[in-house]
């Protein structure tokens, strides 16, 4: 079958061929059988052998070197029978149809839900994680669903979504699974979105530029102390990721959760904004989100709305064009305004798009093209 044949096949044909593919792979027996509620043993990528013979994961700066039977810090990869394996390949613990605005991805085809998936584990340990029930767990501790990449694609087509989001926890920890899904998604005309904390090594990240259409990166704080204390990582790697994605030309949006007393001071905000503009420019959409007490930071209050507004105003005053506030429904900062003429071009309430006047991402009044990925030629077009 040629590439052209594959792309033009109808759903019935796709289902038939998927079933054949699945059957064939089982018959060949070269792929591990997947079962829910257990670990997979899928060969892990980005593994190098150290001088002493031990295996080290080089997916992220954690650079784990687990002993036999142990897992890496992310809990999603580990050493089994002398081999470094992915424990979560084909075992998502969350599958949902979610609006892309929840990621948050605003400069994308509006009114377009995505199929979002996640596995157990994460390479960061954010003290405020709102998905800690599975991000801070290994796959053996969560309820998982057995899904091959092709099965997920079939589901996505069945639901008529236009994109697949790797979401809720750090997707880099299941890079093998993500890549296989993304390859099939590309062939099925589905867009892919990676929502990441950005704590990734450059090499595996570069490999993803071929497969992932859009990135949402959590720029969680604006200095290294915050990253070390609250996130369990380092800011330098995240900044590097942001620069690499920007350089790749892929669409990117950035989200920063502002936590009272932790990363919301005027000084920190100014540092963050200065770095952002100097390295990423003024076109990249930036979302300031409201923190709600979660996980280990239940002792802190929710972020006051005034702080979010202040951050937004500071960023706009510094020259940024698309700055949003999130988790505070009903506010002006939830909408998209044309930087050319100031017209409100997309109006939102929470994660719902109430009104959009964009046409292929262009302002109807001044014709300015908004950065983003706009799919008006697809069904479920602009509302």
């Amino acid at each position, binding site marked *: 079958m040629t590439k052209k044949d594959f792309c033009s096949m109808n759903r019935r044909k796709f289902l038939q061929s998927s079933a054949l593919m699945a059957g064939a792979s089982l018959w060949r027996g070269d792929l591990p059988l997947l079962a829910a509620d257990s670990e997979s043993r899928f060969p892990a990528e980005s593994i190098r052998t150290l001088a002493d013979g031990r295996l080290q994961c080089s997916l992220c700066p954690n650079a784990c070197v687990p002993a036999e039977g142990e897992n890496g810090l992310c809990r999603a990869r580990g050493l089994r029978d002398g081999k470094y394996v992915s424990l979560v390949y084909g075992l998502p613990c*969350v599958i949902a*149809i979610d609006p892309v605005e929840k990621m948050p991805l605003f400069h994308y085809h509006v009114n377009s839900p995505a199929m979002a998936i996640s596995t157990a584990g994460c390479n960061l340990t954010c003290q405020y994680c709102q998905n800690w029930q599975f991000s801070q767990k290994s796959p053996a501790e969560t309820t998982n669903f057995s899904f091959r990449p092709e099965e997920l694609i079939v589901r996505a087509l069945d639901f008529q979504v236009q994109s697949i989001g790797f979401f809720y926890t750090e997707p880099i920890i299941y890079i093998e699974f993500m890549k296989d899904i993304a390859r099939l998604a590309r062939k099925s005309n589905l867009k892919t979105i990676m929502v990441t904390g950005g704590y990734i090594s450059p090499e595996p990240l570069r490999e993803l530029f071929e497969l992932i259409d859009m990135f949402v990166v959590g720029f969680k704080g604006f200095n290294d102390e915050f990253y070390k204390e609250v996130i369990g990582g380092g800011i330098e790697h995240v900044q590097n990721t942001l620069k690499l994605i920007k350089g790749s030309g892929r669409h990117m949006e950035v989200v920063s959760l502002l936590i*009272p007393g932790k990363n919301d001071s005027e000084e920190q905000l100014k540092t963050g904004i200065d770095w952002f503009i100097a390295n990423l420019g003024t076109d990249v959409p930036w979302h300031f989100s409201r923190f709600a007490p979660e996980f280990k930071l239940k002792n802190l209050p*929710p972020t006051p709305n005034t*702080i979010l507004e202040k951050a937004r105003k500071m960023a706009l005053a510094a020259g940024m064009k698309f700055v949003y506030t999130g*988790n505070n*429904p009903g506010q002006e900062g939830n909408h998209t305004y044309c930087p050319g003429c100031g017209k409100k071009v997309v*109006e939102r309430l929470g*994660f*719902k798009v109430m009104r959009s006047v964009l046409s292929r991402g262009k302002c109807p009044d001044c014709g300015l093209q908004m950065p983003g990925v706009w799919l008006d030629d697809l069904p479920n077009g602009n509302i």
Partner: protein
Amino acid sequence: MKKFILLMMFLVLGSVPVLKAADYIDRMGDLVEEISLLNVLRGIYLNEQQAKRIAQLAAEAEKLRATTRAEIEGLAAMPHFEQLRDELYTALAENPPEVRKKVVLLDNQAHKLTGELLDKLAGMEEEIKTLLSHGQQNIFWAFVPCIVPEVDFENPVRTGQAAASSRLMPACELIRNTSEEMWKKHGQAYLDHILKVIEQDAGKMTGDTREDLRRRMVKHAWKIRKMPEADYMINRSQLAEELLLINREQTLRSGFRTTGKLARFFLSPSAARVLPRWVETHFGPGAPVSSEPVIASAPVDLTGSMPAVLPDKISPAAQPANADQSAKPQTDSDKEFWETLVPKSLARLSETPYFDHIYHAFGKSFSRSIFAEENSYVDTFTLLKEAGVILTREREQQYYTLTQGEP
């Protein structure tokens, strides 16, 4: 003289408790209104300019009410009204009291003054409408007066959060996770209980309508229970939302140009009391940076053994009125089902106040009008038709965003 003093003492002593009781009930009503208003304020995120201006308008509305009250008092209508009341005990139909014409005239004057007041208040309400963003108005229209707002109103699902947003998710989970044996025993009673919640909001249904909805609910519950796990995971938000067949966004207004829901909250005497303190607390010179006080500075130490789902608070109003009658005598698991699991499953719904019932009991009429943007009355027929459309899946797929009362 002695008789007169005794009579006075009797009247004074007798009247004190009555007055106190009346004051007490009125005060309770006022507090319920204030609680409800605060619930709106906590979900609508007014900025400083909005909060200050609305507080100003609420104070002006109070002044206008006081002026109108004084003007109506200035009509000195009371003796005429009393005279008419007294004469009606004995007046013949063919010879009605002469004072009736005067009373009608005075009533019209009072009505005119009230109408003018309402007109001014409606103008102020227009200003509030322009002050609020479109999104805030949307949140507001979906809000119902309540003591406990829906969980999702106070704490909506956030960016990046995997949680399903529906307030009915716990109910959906209970339906799905109850064992076959328990479901056979209690399932129908539980669904009937949900139907009662619907009736509380929609008004009493006819027997046929209730039976029809009951059948639909059974079918829907069957779907929830039998759906494959992965399909359930993907569809759960929608399945949950379809459980409660209520659309609260329909209502009415009438009369002169009268006021609507915005005025009912933001221009009320309660607003005049609550908003100045709200402004002082959140935007005053000594206002803390945050809206809530910091409880402690150290991070909470959580062990890895915490349950995946934290228990929700239990709502007393969700107690079943008539637990399954066929299940007697109840075993421990029956008790657990009705006393723990069922209340928990409905705990995310809002607690609307019973204050109107209390007022009824004390002989006062208290309007519990719920206004929609169109300000029309609740239309039960449309509501039930809507429910049918939802259940037969004729409505297009709706993923999470807004459930009623959810920002």
